[in-house]
């Protein structure tokens, strides 16, 4: 953006504004509008303040164009196709994947993609006091989307300024005062152990054991690059951090000896997952241990999760301690910066604090696949932590789409 304003002695002015797109027309109308305003305010506003209005106004329009507000403000009424999920057409062939699409209103699509962009911009800027943010798509009828921003409680003054600015209008600026740490202990709860290991395939949703703790075993995770299948669970269950050379994952069996599943192949502390290469005896499975067993056919994309929120659908999970629970999705593409030195990206927030407890980490959240058999489900993401503070209570963990984007893994 380039703004050039020259002012001559008789207070006549010309304004030039060179930028791409439709900024020129906006600026011309702005200039004529401001000229009128200036005539009217001749008595009240001196030339310096007028110049200031012009400069800041031009700058503001530039920022608005930079953020691309017209992308969603001027979106047409048509429909656009989106990819909602990656699904295996042949459930027996893990390396077959196809995209599932759906047509959605263009206004909704424009708002949601813009919200993703703004969320990314906020996370990259990471202004002082920023603790995280999430995208909450609205319904298809409204065609809107919210960005929920968390700010540190020591920045109450910023919040008050915002509140005064938008008096009477609610904006999702959350002040975070209390944070539940991720805890590793499992006292007082009885985790669900697998009944027997007569089958070589171990289902997801049962307890697994790390050298220092207990977590929930996830379903089979595929790495298409090396054509490997992995057991997965939460990285933080390994306490000081999983070590790929020495750490092992084992499986406690009800009324029998604990068996070994395999050794840690990759540890990803930021996404909070470990990929465990299966040993000789046991293999990971794509089934989830529910009363009516669920079979995983694939996973949701980021827009697929947005579609679930727009249609007010819920997510389910099976944890080793709390078992099967269901909850509404509270936000996607979330950034959380309040538990560690770094920020975690691509998180899903759903359910409430009651849906997860110590020992449930490593379980996956999923939703029924509408186009397949009754028992087929698609994975949304991992469940790794819970958070509570006034006005917000949810389970969070990395989205499956994020793992695919960063490492190529999929379910």
């Amino acid at each position, binding site marked *: 953006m380039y703004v050039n304003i*020259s*002012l001559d002695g008789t207070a006549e002015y010309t304004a030039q504004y060179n930028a791409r797109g439709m900024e020129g027309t906006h600026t011309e109308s*702005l200039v004529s509008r401001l000229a009128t*305003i200036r005539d009217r305010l001749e008595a009240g506003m001196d*030339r310096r303040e007028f110049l200031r209005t012009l400069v*800041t106004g031009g700058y503001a329009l530039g920022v608005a164009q930079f953020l691309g507000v017209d992308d*969603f403000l001027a979106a047409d009424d048509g429909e656009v196709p989106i990819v909602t999920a990656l699904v295996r057409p042949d459930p027996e062939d893990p390396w077959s994947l196809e995209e599932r699409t759906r047509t959605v209103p263009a206004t909704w699509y424009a708002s949601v993609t813009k919200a993703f962009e703004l969320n990314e911009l906020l996370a990259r800027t990471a202004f002082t006091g920023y603790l995280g943010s999430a995208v909450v798509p609205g319904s298809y009828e409204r065609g809107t989307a919210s*960005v929920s921003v968390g700010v540190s409680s020591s920045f109450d003054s910023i919040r008050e300024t915002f509140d005064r600015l938008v008096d009477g209008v609610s904006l*999702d600026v959350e002040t975070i005062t209390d944070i539940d740490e991720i805890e590793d202990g499992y006292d007082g709860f009885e985790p669900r152990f697998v009944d027997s290991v007569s089958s070589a395939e171990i289902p997801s949703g049962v307890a697994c054991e790390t050298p220092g703790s207990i977590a929930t075993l996830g379903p089979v995770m595929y790495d298409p690059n090396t054509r490997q299948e992995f057991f997965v669970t939460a990285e933080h269950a390994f306490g000081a951090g999983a070590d790929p050379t020495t750490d092992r994952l084992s499986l406690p069996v009800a009324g029998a000896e604990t068996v070994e599943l395999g050794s840690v192949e990759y540890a990803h502390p930021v996404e909070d997952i470990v990929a465990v290469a299966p040993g000789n005896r046991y293999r990971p499975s794509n089934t989830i241990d529910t009363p009516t067993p669920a079979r995983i056919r694939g996973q949701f994309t980021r827009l697929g999760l947005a579609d679930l929120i727009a249609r007010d659908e819920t997510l389910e999970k099976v944890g080793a301690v709390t078992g099967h629970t269901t909850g509404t999705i509270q936000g996607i593409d979330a950034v959380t910066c309040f538990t560690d030195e770094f920020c975690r990206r691509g998180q899903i927030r759903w359910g409430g604090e009651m849906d997860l407890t110590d020992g449930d980490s490593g379980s996956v959240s999923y939703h029924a696949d509408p186009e397949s058999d009754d028992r087929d489900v698609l994975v949304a993401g991992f469940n790794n932590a819970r958070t509570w503070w006034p006005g917000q209570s949810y389970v969070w963990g990395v989205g499956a789409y994020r793992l695919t984007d960063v490492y190529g893994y999929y379910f």
Partner: protein
Amino acid sequence: MASDTTDSSGRADRPTTTIASTAVRLAADLLIVTGWVLLLTLLFLQQPWPQWAFYALLIVGIGLYVTVTATWRSTERSP
């Protein structure tokens, strides 16, 4: 994104102000305006309001901001 402003200096009606304080004020203006644009954008994302309302609020907000801060400054100037 670069913003380049050319201000004619040494005008008769302008009281002597240091370049530094002008620069600080300009920086503060631009920071606050950036916040205002971002706030409006997030607000309009979650509301199905029309495009003209966005630009109207944007300009009116800046006009109000300049007017209000201008009165503060004139009070500062008069001892």
